[in-house]
């Protein structure tokens, strides 16, 4: 299991991700060429490393190709992110690369370079502002689900062989009533690795390896997680 996560770049976005991941006990490494910014993060208890991302040898020294499972390409320049993505993918095609983008145009280029996921924070923020103006209740609800730690939360549950969900139809499980949860969607391995929203109206047969995404209060999520883990 390759557990190490590397975050490239030093800015408010990369530190936000670092803080988020720190709570979840991942083997984190922050890499940047900005010594001062790294020192600040080091003070907060992160392990940091000065490195030049354009040098493949230095990338290998960071553990890419061996220990590293995920990298975040969070440079401010799209060109840097594209370069990093290509470099990393050429060393190890299996690494998951999540990249930041400044525009819809670069998002396509990053995808072409092999990034597994491209996040456009400005588009997300723009949509949020629009929602605040036009649909304030929706904005508040999303805020509660996505950013709120105390109320509702999102969880993914993997169907384990032999558990009570294995081999049954999703519609028959009545998760909504029994656990007070909403099933947002499912990855049905029989249909590919694509996430399918439950609103598509399909009734999926669950098998081992399928993944459910549910929304609910934290205790309800815990309960389902516990019971689905039993075989």
């Amino acid at each position, binding site marked *: 299991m390759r557990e190490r996560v590397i975050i490239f770049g030093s800015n408010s976005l990369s530190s936000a991700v670092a803080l988020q*991941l720190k709570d979840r006990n991942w083997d984190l490494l922050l890499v940047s060429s900005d010594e001062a910014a790294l020192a600040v993060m080091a003070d907060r208890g992160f392990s940091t490393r000065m490195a030049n991302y354009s040098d493949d040898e230095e990338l290998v020294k960071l553990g890419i190709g061996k220990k590293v499972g995920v990298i975040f390409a969070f440079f401010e320049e799209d060109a840097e992110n594209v370069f990093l993505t290509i470099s990393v993918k050429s060393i190890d095609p299996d690494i998951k690369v999540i990249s930041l983008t400044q525009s819809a145009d670069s998002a396509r280029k990053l995808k072409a370079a092999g990034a597994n996921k491209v996040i456009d924070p400005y588009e997300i923020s723009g949509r949020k502002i629009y929602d*605040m103006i036009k649909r304030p209740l929706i904005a508040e609800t999303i805020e509660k689900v996505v950013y709120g730690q105390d109320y509702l939360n999102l969880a993914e549950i993997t169907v384990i062989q032999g558990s009570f969900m294995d081999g049954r139809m999703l519609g028959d499980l009545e998760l909504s009533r029994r656990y*007070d949860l909403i099933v947002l969607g499912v990855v049905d391995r029989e249909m590919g690795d694509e996430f399918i929203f439950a609103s598509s*109206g399909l009734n999926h047969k669950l098998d081992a390896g399928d993944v459910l*995404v549910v929304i609910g209060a934290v205790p309800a999520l815990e309960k389902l997680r516990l019971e689905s883990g039993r075989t």
Partner: protein
Amino acid sequence: MSLSRAIIKHCYRLEDSPRYKRTKHFFYNLLENPQARIRPYFDIFMILLVLSSVFVLIYEVKEDLGLPGQIFELCAVVIFLTEYLLRFWLYNNIHRVFIEHYERAEFVNLPFSLGPPVKEVLQKKWDYMTTPLAIIDLLAIIPSYRPLRFLRIFLLFRLFKLFRYARSINEFVKVLSEKRFEFYTLAIFLAFVVFTAASAIYFFEARNAGGEIEHFFDGIYWAVVTISTVGYGDITPQTTEGRMITLVLIICGIGVISFTTSVIVSAFTEKMSELRDNRVFAELEKHKTKHIIICGFGRVGQVVAERLAASRDRFVVIDPDAEVIAYAKRLGYLGIQGSAEDSELLVQSGIQERAERILCLTGNDVMNVYITLTARDLNADIEIISRANNRASIRKLYQAGANHTVAPFKAVGAIAGEYIGQPVAFEAIHGILSGRKGISLETVTIRPDSCLIGRPISDVDFVSYKLILFGVISHLDRVPDQDTVAYDLKWNRIHFNPKAGFRLSANDLLVLIGHEYSITHFKDRLESGGL
């Protein structure tokens, strides 16, 4: 003494009279107030009247229109005269001047005398009469008076009255008047050259010396015709000296013409952006609905603007970068180039009355805090949404008066954090937040006359509509069902995952997750009562 007493009494009565104020306000709207709705109609009427009266004047040179022509002329003059008097009346409030002087006298316990206020009133009215536009107005009326018929040529001054009614001509004059100093210099230079040249040509080319110049006026006429490079050629110099003067004058003429052109051109290039901005402000003022001010047209601003434009909301973009504003204008948005921390610019953009919201979306937190503070200072009630680019700025933005803050890093942190532990959940959140797959969270209102009221939620088969029912938003005073968990929002309560027995009431909002098509279809069916 009793006269002044009577006048003061009358002034106070006017000050108190609502009818007087209403009348005055009506005429103010009609004649002066640029924002009044009635004003454009009046302007168009006056423009037509001016044009037709000038047309009649020209037509009468050869033909006789008889009585109808005279009646038309009389009507036009009466209207012009009334307008002139009304403007004269509107210029300031006479009674206020009297009251002010009276109260001042009372305050310091001095006897009140009519002299100073009368003088002030006359002074003010005289000030009005000597403004260029008022003089033009007067010149458009006077020649109709028979004994002054010889002034008929001034009737053409009516055309100048058009200045009053057309904004663009007004702006033209304003721009040129900014270059007053250059024009003065030019005029003095021109007068000097013309006078010198006229004297010289008169000296050398007088009739008795064999030339064609009869009077000194002929000299001036010739000098102006030559210096303007028009050169009719009706008077031509015959002597060598005369020709030398002509050569010099022609060269001066080229200089004068190019100087004039460059002054006018530079006046307009300097003022062009301001003129364009004025258009934008006028456009904002034209509409009744309120608009949104977007400060900063970076990526976030662009996304917001795009969505607002799609839902036909009105907004104006302010950004200091000329290229960015040019881009906004290419997209068809209203844009002003300038920095939003400038209070005056914000006021012109309507922050005090006509704007309902201001979005501070620059990439610089210092700027966002400053704009937020300025906006809050200018309008205590406006809704301010600010972008925070750093964790530490969020609190400062709230302190500066922001109602909401949006932090791009927060969203990224939340979803990126999700990606490692729960990649599928990440996919779901990212799908909803970015709206890429067409899936979104949407509310549907239950109208008071809806057939669903009072019925249990299980009556609606959301699955067949390809929707997920997330919850129901109700008023805060609705007691939660025993089976359904409820969370409080700021002003409302959301009942998460309502159970089969949950009954809907009027004005509840259904929160649905689904494709936009499904939601539109569902709304449609709900409206038609065909659920």
